[in-house]
């Protein structure tokens, strides 16, 4: 299931997959959020992470990006831990996590995408500005470059964030619900962006909510509901059975017992033996 069977007719695969997760477990306080998740994604595809509310989709992204602590398991980007591959990865957070009243304009936000490559107090160079400009133009937001971010619509805010990720010139893009609450034209712009990135051989992983569009927009699906339900190409995994397993409620006994385990710190006692 987790082996990548999708690239049978594409170009020869790289020695290492863009993202490979093995036995990942995460929790929030004492509640288990993800248990024993393993998958490997193929290169040059668009991949959706799908699951009900509270299934741990965003947590999964944050876990692999090192933004929230991992309890157990291993994450590898292109065969290496994150610290060695940061420049190859761009992350787009959820729009709700941002203080949109912050005094900053669109261009400066996009320029932030270049800071990963700058030294301590180095300022963005002319080249960095050109790259940011190109990213804004690709998302048709150049006309808004001097706007205050609070003056943007939801779709425009999302495009600014995508432009910032684009300015990173990464190989793998991780996006947390880029389609949530955006207008039709932004949705189209995102799809165009996906196509352009895919044409350059880049990989895109998105948390996605809309089951109606998932088959159309993505090549690959990872079904998640606190554990991995299925992962693979759309043609093979987008089945009624997988949907039922994903949306049919959690396995309550698994849930309860894992919670008890964390609460009693049983796993720690076990490891210390």
């Amino acid at each position: 299931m987790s082996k990548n069977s999708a690239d049978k007719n594409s170009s020869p695969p790289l020695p290492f997959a863009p993202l490979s997760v093995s036995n990942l477990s995460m929790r929030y306080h004492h509640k288990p959020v993800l248990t024993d998740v393993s998958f490997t994604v193929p290169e040059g595809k668009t991949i959706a992470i799908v699951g009900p509310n509270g299934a741990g989709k965003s947590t999964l992204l944050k876990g692999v990006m090192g933004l929230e602590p991992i309890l157990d398991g291993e994450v590898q980007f292109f065969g290496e831990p994150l610290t060695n591959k940061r420049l190859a990865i761009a992350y787009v957070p959820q729009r709700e996590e941002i203080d949109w009243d912050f005094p900053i304009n669109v261009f400066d936000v996009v320029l932030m995408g270049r800071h990963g490559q700058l030294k301590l107090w180095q300022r963005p160079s002319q080249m960095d500005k050109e790259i940011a400009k190109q990213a804004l133009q690709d998302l048709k937001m150049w006309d808004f470059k001097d706007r205050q971010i609070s003056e943007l619509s939801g779709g425009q805010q999302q495009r600014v964030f995508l432009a910032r990720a684009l300015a990173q010139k990464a190989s793998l893009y991780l996006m947390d619900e880029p389609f949530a609450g955006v207008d039709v034209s932004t949705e189209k712009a995102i799809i165009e962006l996906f196509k352009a990135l895919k044409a350059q051989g880049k990989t895109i992983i998105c948390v996605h909510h809309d089951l109606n569009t998932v088959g159309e927009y993505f090549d690959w699906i990872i079904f998640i509901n606190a554990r991995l339900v299925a992962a693979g190409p759309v043609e093979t995994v987008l089945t009624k059975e997988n949907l039922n397993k994903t949306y049919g409620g959690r396995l309550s006994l698994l849930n309860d017992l894992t919670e008890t385990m964390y609460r009693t710190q049983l796993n720690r006692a076990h490891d210390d033996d």
Partner: protein
Amino acid sequence: MTGFELFPPPSLWQNWLSFWRFEDMNLLWVLMGSILLGMSASVIGGFAFLRKRALIGDALAHAALPGVMMAFLLFQTRDPLVIFIGALCSSFIGFFLIDWLPKNTKLKADAALAITLSFFFALGLMLLSFIQGLEVSNKSGLDKILFGQAAAMTDGDIKLLGYVTIFVLITVVLFFQKFRLIAFNQSYARTIGIAVNRYELLLALLIVMSVVVGLQLVGVVLMAAVLLTPMAAARFWSNQLATILIIASLLGGFSAIISTQISYLAPAMPTGPWMVVSLSILFILSLLFAPQKGLLKRYFDYQNLRQKVAEENILRTLYKLLERKDFKDKPFTLADIQSFRNMPSHCLQNTLKLLEKKGFAQRTFQGITLTPEGFEKATQLTRRHRLWESYLNEQADLSPEQVHQHAERIEHILTEAQETQLQQELSNSLHDPHGNQIPRKAEPTSVERGGEKI
């Protein structure tokens, strides 16, 4: 000079003059020092403000108090550097406690802050009263640290103040972009590989240093206001962080001048409260009079909008009255209008006067009529109203009963471009959901002609 009096004795003027002639060179240094402190505290406090950790400065200032007292007790000296290091240490202990408690216990951040603040302050006060009871030299003036006293500063104090504040300002300028990135979106900064923890520590160090070095001048109790009020005031004046920080530092420097001067002219006056009061006045002025975001501007904007809505409502009422008479130009009375539209009589009268002044309506002894310009405007409003009703009905599946209230508001804010877009999308519907005809937009040529006429 014997303290502060309500009516200044004649000598006050003399004192003021001699203050600004800097006959006392020491005074010039104190003034420079306090300006630097006002500026650097405002800038570094600005970042705490942006990161929604406004109270951290307050806690750190209180946490410094036991450090000052311990340093004095242990080394029996008022050497600025010794006191500074003592304060720095205890302030940092406070900082780590505030950081550690919420992460490792069930305490929330605000509770951790409150507990740390009051505990350290109490400890400091205990030590202070203990020292007051001791038979040691140069203990007097130690209590000035509570509210600050510019006049009590020594040369050593001022030198240290200068070094530290200049260091803080230069560091902020150097790392401005990184600090802004972290304040705006910390988790993103982590994902692109910025050593967020190190910058956080640097930011904390800068805040602690600014707080500790400012104690002599502003005092423990009010330090937080000096960190935050300039930023809160400057936020009204601009939308660019760099500009906001520059304005904040100017406000901080200005209030430092005022308070130092007062503290010198009336030596019983503590500097801290005056600094905070002058900053608060600057804040209130910004709140009221700032050009874009000030309350006054917003009030006038609102009044203008209300006036506009009232005018447009009357125009539309007149259009509807005309429509009923098949557009035979007949004057209408106030009673006609009021029977259609709820509006207090005085408001109706005033608005009609304004419409007359703008050339949209005419009043004769027969009644009220629309001028050609007024009719054009009224037609446009009605078109917008009905287009929006149709749009809601057809595209958003709202029933005809639901759409009117919404269109009543939208008609006032629809733009030319939006109107054209609506008209294109609804090219088939000639009537609104209530069966009234939607007045079509005139051909472009006639619009141009209308423009020439004006």
